[in-house]
């Protein structure tokens, strides 16, 4: 090996070792705990195979609610972010006056944390009725839009969960918009002109030319927002406290580990979360690496 390569190896060795221990080592350790019977403060590593997983997946109603809620939330959050983000991006791309101002306005919610968003929207989506009405319900009531007054996330499951998607959308749509806008700007003007010369209407132009060209941007949005959506925790804690009806796996993991000392079950949920995010992210990493290699 050349001197250069040796130096390079020595330079990256510390971080490889640290990441190896503190990321992959602990993933392995979690996997081990998830197949143990460790409950209570005393660690116990008796091997029980996949029992914790089968128990969760087949018999645990709370885990099932968590999965269902994650599904409903992801649908609203991802679907909404793609549609709204695309609309905003297209509007901004039409050379709006004060484009910079609007871009900033749409992006600003990203600057606050999900906890702040959750606390603010907890007030806005207050479900109290009658004299204690407040937030959006009060606004609707005063504007004579009574039919919009509703119970928000207190709606019976599973639809209550869909409303948790609204604050998440408020916060992250700007991000989707920014990605789409970058995508739109990278589409050469010639392509649009060519389509127009060929007699395409504006609608056809977007439908047949521009949106198909945005596919990489859509993929990025799905990956980035998708893994946020699978791991969502802080927003729900801030908005709803801990209700089983609005539970997600990350909250269940925390509760069962630290309130009930079921370390084995907590580790199993953690591992399932890791796998679900990996299913989403790994093919993407693979794909983008191959693309880089092609370039």
């Amino acid at each position, binding site marked *: 090996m050349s001197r250069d390569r040796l130096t390079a190896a020595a330079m990256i060795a510390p971080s490889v070792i640290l990441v190896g221990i503190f990321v992959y080592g602990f993933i392995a350790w979690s996997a081990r705990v998830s197949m143990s019977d460790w*409950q*209570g*403060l*005393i660690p116990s590593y008796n091997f029980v195979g996949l029992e914790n997983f089968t128990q969760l997946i087949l018999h645990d*109603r*709370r885990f099932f*609610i968590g999965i269902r809620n994650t599904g409903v939330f992801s649908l609203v959050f991802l679907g909404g972010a793609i549609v709204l983000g695309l609309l905003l991006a297209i509007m901004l791309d039409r050379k709006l006056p*004060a484009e*910079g*101002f609007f871009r*900033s*306005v749409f992006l*600003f919610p990203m*600057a*606050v944390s999900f906890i*702040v968003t959750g606390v603010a929207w*907890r007030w806005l989506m*207050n*479900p*109290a*009725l*009658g*004299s*204690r009405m407040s937030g959006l319900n009060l606004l609707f009531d005063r504007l004579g839009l009574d039919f919009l007054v509703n*119970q928000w996330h*207190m709606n*019976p*499951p599973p639809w209550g969960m869909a409303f948790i998607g609204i604050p998440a959308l408020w916060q992250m749509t700007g991000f989707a918009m920014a990605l789409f806008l970058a995508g739109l700007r990278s589409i050469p003007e010639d392509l649009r002109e060519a389509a127009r010369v060929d007699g395409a209407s504006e609608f056809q132009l977007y439908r047949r030319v521009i949106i198909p060209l945005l596919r990489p941007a859509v993929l990025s949005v799905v990956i980035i927002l998708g893994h946020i959506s699978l791991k969502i925790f802080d927003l729900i804690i801030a908005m*709803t*406290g*801990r*209700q*089983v*009806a609005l*539970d997600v796996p990350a909250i269940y993991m925390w*509760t*069962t580990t*630290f*309130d*009930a*000392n*079921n370390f084995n079950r907590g580790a199993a949920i953690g591992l399932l979360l890791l796998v679900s995010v990996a299913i989403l992210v790994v093919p993407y990493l693979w794909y983008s690496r191959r693309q880089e290699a092609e370039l």
Partner: protein
Amino acid sequence: MRIRCGIALLAAGSLLLAATACAEEEPVDEPVADEVVDAPELDDPEAAEYDVMEPPAEGDAVEVFTWWTAGGEAEGLAAMVEVFNAEYPEYTFVNAAVAGGAGTAARAVLASRLAAGDPPSSWQGHAGAELIGTYVVAGQLEPLNFLFEEEGWLDVLPEAIIPQISEDGNIYSVPVNIHRANILWHLPEQLDEFGVEVPTTWEEFFTVADELDAQGVIPLALGEAWTVMHLFETVLLGTMDVATYDGLWDGTTDWSGPEVAEAIEVFDRVLEYTNPDAPTLSWDQATQLVIDGDAAFNIMGDWAAGYFGAQGLEPGEGGYGWAPVPGTDGVFQWLSDSFVLPVDAHNRDGAIAWLRVAGSREGQDAFNPIKGSIPARTDGDRSLYDEYLLSAMEDWETDEVTGSLAHGTVASDAFKSEIDTSIGLYLSDGDTAAFQDALVSACTSAGPC
């Protein structure tokens, strides 16, 4: 450009706002912590010679871990520390309090310290199954029978609570205060306006509740998840006798039996008379509904008395009123904060000295009037307590006593957490039969069954 600056200013402004909002909570524990650590200097003339910067010598420090960081709790602790410093000037009290909702954050910190083999000299925990199910089974607490005998505490504590804080005949903690869980709060004058009486059975409650409902008043104010469990435990106690209720926690009462089924049925009906936005309210916001006249009753532990007081209401006619939860007259459903002696405690003698103060009449009478709870001992100085607490002290002496579920007295953390999940599942689907099945399997998987 001008627009950009405006936006930047806006953003900076909102960040500042957020920062000050966050900062509001912080300083609360700081002055208290200082006060406690500095306390020896106030009482002990020799202490004036100590160099403030010098940490207390290893051997003298008594490090006590609590989640009392704010308000009456922290002030009560400081008062008890003064008693400690006066009686044991050779030790230095070190306050290791960790802030955060009813100890959730503190207990995670404690767990990591225990895992690292660095326990504090003593720590606060809910007396009963919560301590036993988590720390005693892990072999981390020393039995305290010798201390109870030396100090004669067995004679001044109600006999019935001793088995509830013991495991295999060993007593594991020193209860310093007592709270009562089964109280139905109301404003007497307001009830006169509504034209209803305080119900004493659940059947009476339903009649009263229908009348209130017809007037557009919420019959029973309810809050977030743990307050629902609090309600459930009082309904359990209100629909069965004390022996049957106690049997739920040692496995002698069948969770699949008719008593539990009846309790669930009543619970199911009671929930119909509560506010639909309950999950979004904290316990004190639920109590506030009663104060505001939106609701007639609230079932909550007697820390609510402190909240009524803070809102400017006096105990009694014209202020706030209290009664046992329907069906629980003559029963005192208790919970307690207590202190423990860890195995291999740092400064074991100092820790025992702290426990002696925590169990003493002087210590408890210093702490409780400020914290707003009654002493665990039945010989507290009655002149120190307000009208509500006096009535609680009387009941504590004469009533049958049994423990609380939501506050760690009767069920281990694991069992309690499974019951919490069962209640949550029931709230999300309203299926009472599945609720009972879930309780049965909670008892088998994590409880004594």
